[in-house]
């Protein structure tokens, strides 16, 4: 685990339709100096993106209403420089590759390890050379 005191605060937009999941993630990421704002659907996420600035976004691929990939496309239109990490409920590389094709930074399959996620987030924000285990 990274020592908290040396890590700058990262503003993160977490988009997932599972409220239980987003609420626990906010707590866990908060402990790792990552301030997460949550959106439970694509529309909400786009509204938030209009109002605020984020360093990174974590986006679930499978959501009710607007699909994760569609949200990704909209994100890339509104904020082309915003790194987006995709979350998938399954290990399908094909879906992930479609994400890459639309400019996703990386992808993770659920359930993942929090340390792995924070490493990728930091890498996305700072372009750090941390290696994931």
């Amino acid at each position, binding site marked *: 685990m990274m020592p908290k005191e040396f890590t700058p605060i990262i503003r993160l937009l977490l988009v997932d339709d*599972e409220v239980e999941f987003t609420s626990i993630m906010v707590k866990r990421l908060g402990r790792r100096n990552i301030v997460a704002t949550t959106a439970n659907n694509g529309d909400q996420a786009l509204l938030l993106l209009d109002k605020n600035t984020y360093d990174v976004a974590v986006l679930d691929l499978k959501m009710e209403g607007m699909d994760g990939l569609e949200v990704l496309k909209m994100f890339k239109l509104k904020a082309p420089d915003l790194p987006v990490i995709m979350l998938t409920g*399954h290990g399908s590389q094909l879906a992930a590759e479609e994400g890459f094709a639309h400019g996703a930074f990386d992808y993770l399959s659920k359930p*993942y390890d*929090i340390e792995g996620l924070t490493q990728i987030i930091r890498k996305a924000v700072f372009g750090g050379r941390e290696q994931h285990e």
Partner: protein
Amino acid sequence: MGNNPPDRLEYYASLKRNIFIAVVIVSMIPLIVFGSITRYEFHTSYAEKVRAHLSIMVKKHAQNIDTFLKERQANIVSLASSYPYEQLADNAFLAQQLTRFQKTYGPVITDLGIINEKGEQISYAGPFQLKDANYAESEWLKQAMASDVYTSDVFMGLRRLPHFIVAVRSLKNGTPWLLRATIDFMAFNELVQNIHIGKTGFAFIINKKIEMQTDSTRSVEKNLFRDAELFHPDKTGTDIMNEPLFQTRTSDSGKEIIYVARLLKNGEWALVFQQDHLDAYSELYRAREVSLLTLVLGGIAIVLMAAWVSRHTTIKIAKADQEKEIMNRQVIQSGHLASIGMLAAGIAHEINNPVAIMVEEAGWIEDLLEDEDFKESENLNEFKRALGQIRKQGIRCRNITHKMLNFSRHSDHRVQLFNLNELIREITNLSSQHAKYSNVTIELNLTEPLSSIKASQTEMEQVIFNLLNNAIDAIDKKEGGKVRIHTWQDDSMIHFEVQDTGSGISEANLKRIFDPFFSTKPTGQGTGLGLSICYGIVQKMNGQIVVESTLEKGSRFEISLPAAESPEETETKTTKTTGSMTS
């Protein structure tokens, strides 16, 4: 190939029977029809030929005999009219005339005699002592006196020998006298005795009383003529004087006999030709036998052919059916697998989210345990252990769902060239921890250089990983063991072998190891999908997977894959391997 169930066997038996019957009928009908027509035509024309031949022959001979008789009559008539009675009554002159006749016509006329109205023989020339014979009581004399020219039936007469006579009546001063000539019986006999056809065909002459007029060494079925219409042409309606009568009769002995007859001597005699039916139609019967033999042999050939064809066809159909059934089963199986895959994919999607929440919640408690307040807690280690376990089980859930997803082929299907040895090295590295923990040494025997393989690398990874994990898991942790991985190449095939010194697989299980969800591992440790996936992948790569196993000695899995054509063009693939987990 599986055995056919009994109702199938019954079906094939009836199919075989039906083909057999169809072939026999289709082949036999033309054979029989053609054979029958030919036989009938041949029979008719041959019978006609025999009939015509015999009729002509009889007609000709009858004409000959008639001519012979007429000539003799003419001879005698001319002799009687050429010389006066007184001259003919002289024995010496008569003898002179006989000699002249015999010189001219051969020994046809045996003797000559002049007989007065009282039946006394006035003069005689011939070999018998009949000079003063008196024929007053003879039946023939009366008849001869009644007509100008008379030819008798054959009789024994005074000389006690069969003969017949030709007599000419002349008048001397109103008193009749006869010039009588005896026809040599032997010479006359020859006319008919020379008629021989086949083994049983012979001719004879009979008179109206059905008395033999010629000598015959053969048995004459005289009773056939008892009620003969022969001498009653009106009855038959045929002109027997011209056209011979042709009849087939059954003798008392049951023999079929044909006879051909024509009247002679103004209807007083008949020339009869007699022959056994069998003999007359011997060629016909022979031809019949030959055709029957041909028919029987043809029939046998057809039956044998039909048996062969029906057997052969049924075997082929059964084979085709079996292949079709296997294919159907495969289609059903793959359909099954596809639906299982879809179900698995659905479950995986749904399960991963709650599992993720569970893992995160556990993680959150772990995070909180880091805080000072809990450091002093008595059960801190127990908490940490429990949370670690929750996380570990969560990972297990993910692994299971990922396997299920892979099973449903949601993995990377891109086909590319890669080196199998490199992939094996990578995977054995990944598994080295697992192997160490399980007290297993991995031995690599990788043949270099090895041609590249053209396949989905992700899928190949899965295959190697599965086989390696299974091999490690088969080895008892306490005793330890070895896993040998060997690669080699022959011609166009690349072989990859994983051999372990583990527990082996029982024969019953060996049959089922590629079935989905079949696992020998304790419940919860294996999904039973690994080898089923491997099997599917290898099949898709046009490869083969072979298993050999001995209980308590270990198992050997050999996979053979076709080598790619260009071994050097190995494309090194860089996969994004993010999302790894700390364990």
